[in-house]
């Protein structure tokens, strides 16, 4: 197969501009009709420290960050030393010979390009060093100068006329140097097909914001936290454009309780945070369960516990998302798998919250939230939006007669809204009866506990939250959830192609648990293993708890996303020696 599949990494000191090179390259390639998938690994400091950005480019949708590197560009010795081991044997290292010494003993193509010197002596504006680096990469990729020029013009480097010229000059110097030194990697990345408005380039957080707005979210309250702050910043701009309100609150407890207040009036609301914020929110999550108030809480997971590793990725907040609250406080927990899915899962999160009158926790993670991917523009006319059940407005029922928590067949009761319905009531976190009156009798507690549980359990019948892939007669089954879908499916395809009998079951709904599908999968395959980015096998334990079956586990806790290769190796290991 001659499929295009290149993984390119640029690494340098944090704050020097390597990230911009990666961003511009990714956007340019995406605009040229290709599929991209980015991956950044940053220190938690604002400036300084080794940082890297990676772009994987394919002509079909990309599903994982890429395994070994085809091209590595490093700006200094520290980064050379960190990354050179990840270059493929057929790969190329581009380094700055004045800033670092290449290890001659390695059997790699290593090309010195004096980025720093050219910038200083020829270009003479240090800011343009990253345009130079960009040019070196585009020419190495076989992109003609004219195309590269257009890419620069359309990028952030072209935004201000006064800088454009010097930036184009920097680009030109790259092409001159490469040409002068006869550098040719033999690559010809096709950049002719212009991408129209049908394809979008988004991060997971971007897509999630657009999904939320499309679902009708018009109130957001939040407190900054890495890696969820982008959600708030994106919505700070977008929300007022659709007439909504965004409040930066004083902490996460205020964020979630303000959201509850807004939802009480009928608004569709969201707050987004990371682990430490979710920990602070669990008391109020219990309140929303108790008062049956719709609410979407996004948790962009990062390395834990405690402050942990704010710029690293991990799937380790699942326990908290499912079990975090005192008492029996069931809620819906779902997870998004990739950028495009962030859009649709955000829509679904609101639909579930409104339909079931419940908090919904949407799990994303650092890697999913911040990597860029190409996705098809959603057709909004096809997006189903659900509204919450309300009293029929004929006003014949007085507040004294009206039961806010009426025991209906589906356990979901019409919810009156202040300003709109005359059936005013008092929502309370104390145990209450159907009429919303405080009631601690065993009978009321038993009835209402059942209502709150059954309502949530019935959401398991919503379609589209669990999907099986791979061989029917699999010898090994992999279970994954959320953002590990991509690498799992890529590894599945690779190993299926090699003749292994493997299958995968991917969950996007975690609570309530789609038990039927899980059981069918597990019972039909001799060995089933749960693949997740955490130490204790949180989903595996939870599955075992619900299904009383024994499962294998494959866990990685490096703070980095799965590579397809990690999982491929695991599959081969199990099926060869297992």
């Amino acid at each position, binding site marked *: 197969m001659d499929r295009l599949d290149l993984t390119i990494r640029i690494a340098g000191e944090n704050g020097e501009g390597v990230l911009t090179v990666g961003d511009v390259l990714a956007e340019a390639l995406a605009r040229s009709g290709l599929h991209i998938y980015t991956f950044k690994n940053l220190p938690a400091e604002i400036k300084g420290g080794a940082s890297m950005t990676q772009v994987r480019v394919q002509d079909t949708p990309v599903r994982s960050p890429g395994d070994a590197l085809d091209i590595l560009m490093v700006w200094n010795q520290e980064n050379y030393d960190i990354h050179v081991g990840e270059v493929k044997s057929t790969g190329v290292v581009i380094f700055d010979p004045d800033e670092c010494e290449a290890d001659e003993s390695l059997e790699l193509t290593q090309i010195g390009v004096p980025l720093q010197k050219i910038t200083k002596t020829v270009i003479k504006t240090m800011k343009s060093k990253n345009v130079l680096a960009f040019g070196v990469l585009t020419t190495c990729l076989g992109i003609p100068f004219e195309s590269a020029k257009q890419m620069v013009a359309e990028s952030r480097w072209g935004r201000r006329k006064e800088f454009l010229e010097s930036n184009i000059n920097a680009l030109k110097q790259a092409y001159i140097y490469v040409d002068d030194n006869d550098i040719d990697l033999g690559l010809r990345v096709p950049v002719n097909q212009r991408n*129209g408005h049908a394809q979008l380039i988004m991060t997971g957080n971007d897509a999630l914001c657009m999904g939320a707005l499309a679902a009708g979210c018009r*109130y957001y309250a939040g407190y900054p936290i890495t890696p969820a702050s982008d959600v708030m910043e994106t919505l700070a701009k977008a929300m007022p454009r659709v007439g909504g309100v965004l409040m930066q609150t004083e902490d996460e407890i*205020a964020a979630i309780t303000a959201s509850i207040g807004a939802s009480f*009036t*009928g608004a569709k609301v969201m707050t987004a945070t990371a682990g430490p914020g979710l920990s602070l929110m669990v*008391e109020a999550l219990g309140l929303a369960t108790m008062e049956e108030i719709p609410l979407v809480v996004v948790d962009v997971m990062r390395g834990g516990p405690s402050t942990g590793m704010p710029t690293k990725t991990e799937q380790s907040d699942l326990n908290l998302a499912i079990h975090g609250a005192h008492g029996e406080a069931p809620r819906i927990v779902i997870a998004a798998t990739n950028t495009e899915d962030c859009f649709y899962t955000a829509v679904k999160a609101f639909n579930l919250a409104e339909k079931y009158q419940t908090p919904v926790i949407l799990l994303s993670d650092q890697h999913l939230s911040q990597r860029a991917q190409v996705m098809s523009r959603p057709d909004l006319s096809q997006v189903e939006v659900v509204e919450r059940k309300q009293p029929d407005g004929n006003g014949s029922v007085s507040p004294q007669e009206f039961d806010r928590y009426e025991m209906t067949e589906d356990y979901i009761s019409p919810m009156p809204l*202040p300003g709109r319905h005359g059936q005013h009531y008092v929502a309370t976190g104390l145990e209450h009866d159907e009429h919303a009156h405080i009631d601690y009798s065993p009978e009321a507690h038993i009835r209402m506990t059942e209502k709150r549980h059954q309502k949530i359990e019935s959401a398991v019948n919503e379609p589209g939250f669990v999907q099986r892939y791979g061989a029917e007669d699999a010898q090994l089954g992999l279970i994954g959830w959320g953002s590990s879908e991509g690498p799992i499916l890529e590894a599945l395809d690779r190993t299926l192609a090699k003749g292994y009998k493997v299958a995968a079951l991917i969950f996007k709904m975690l609570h309530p648990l789609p038990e039927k599908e899980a059981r069918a999968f597990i019972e039909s395959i001799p060995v089933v293993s749960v693949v997740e980015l955490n130490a204790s096998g949180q989903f595996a334990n939870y599955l075992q708890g619900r299904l009383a079956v024994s499962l294998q586990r494959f866990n990685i806790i490096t703070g980095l996303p799965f590579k397809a290769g990690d999982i491929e190796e695991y599959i081969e290991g199990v099926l060869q020696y297992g």
Partner: protein
Amino acid sequence: MAEVPAADTAKTGAPERAEEAGQAEQANQTKQATKRTLKDYRSEVKPTWCPGCGDFGVLAALQRALAERNLDPRDVVIVSGIGCSGRLPEFVNAYGLHVVHGRALPAAQGVKAANPDLTVIAVGGDGDGFAIGGGHVPHAVRRNQDITYIVMDNQVYGLTKGQPSPSTPTGMQALRRSVSMPKMAPYEGVLEGQLNILAMVIVYGCSFVARTFSSQATEMAKTIGLGLDHPGFAFVHAMSPCPTFYNTYDPWKESFLPLPEDWDTGDRIKAIDKAMEEVGEGVFHSGVFFQEQYRTYTDKLQDVYAKAYGDEQATIDALMDQYA
């Protein structure tokens, strides 16, 4: 409310009221009930407070103030945290939102932001508001939404059976009137300083700050009413004794004085000074300490909308163009 938001006020997706959607019957009912009385704001739930609790007075005063303004109960939302005082919404015939301990203000802000047409009142105790919830007060003040916040201050944690609160006097003083506080402070009384919550709220920048006493029924209804009328965040310090755990009726009856007749409600520093002097003098002043009108959060949002979209809101498709 003095400043009714303009008709084009964005309401965060909150639907229009039902009768506007054509339910004529209900609209008629609403119009007929034009002259409301205190009784119209009484819910079917009998208050569960101890006999003699000051909170009865606050409840009645609030009901009276609502009746005087003839507000439709469906347009009123009373938000509270946890405490004896936090049970108040249950006893009022209106919407109520009884949240977790200390979070009445954030919840009230969400209510108001999502639907600025509503009359939003937050109520709670001194512990709810200035212990666990104390971090939210400055920020609620900063946002200056048109919310009335009534703190029912009994200088004690009533619901948890009488521990000292942030407004309990320091030292042995309070212990003499309390059966319960000596449990928590058995040797030297309360070691911590007493917070001057009225002065604090003024320093936070609050646009309306008043004090009133639950035993002075008429005055309390008036003061709460002024708070409701004030366009912006209004703080009403409602002293409301807890005869069960800290019976302050006798001393407070003595120590309540009206603010001087010629009191200038426009001088923030004087107001702080007055509030801070009180402790030494052993008095409480009732009345409006400070009032000034700033633009409310809702007002400012109108400017934001004017810039963000002008006449017509953006479509989601248009928002997505930036990613193409």
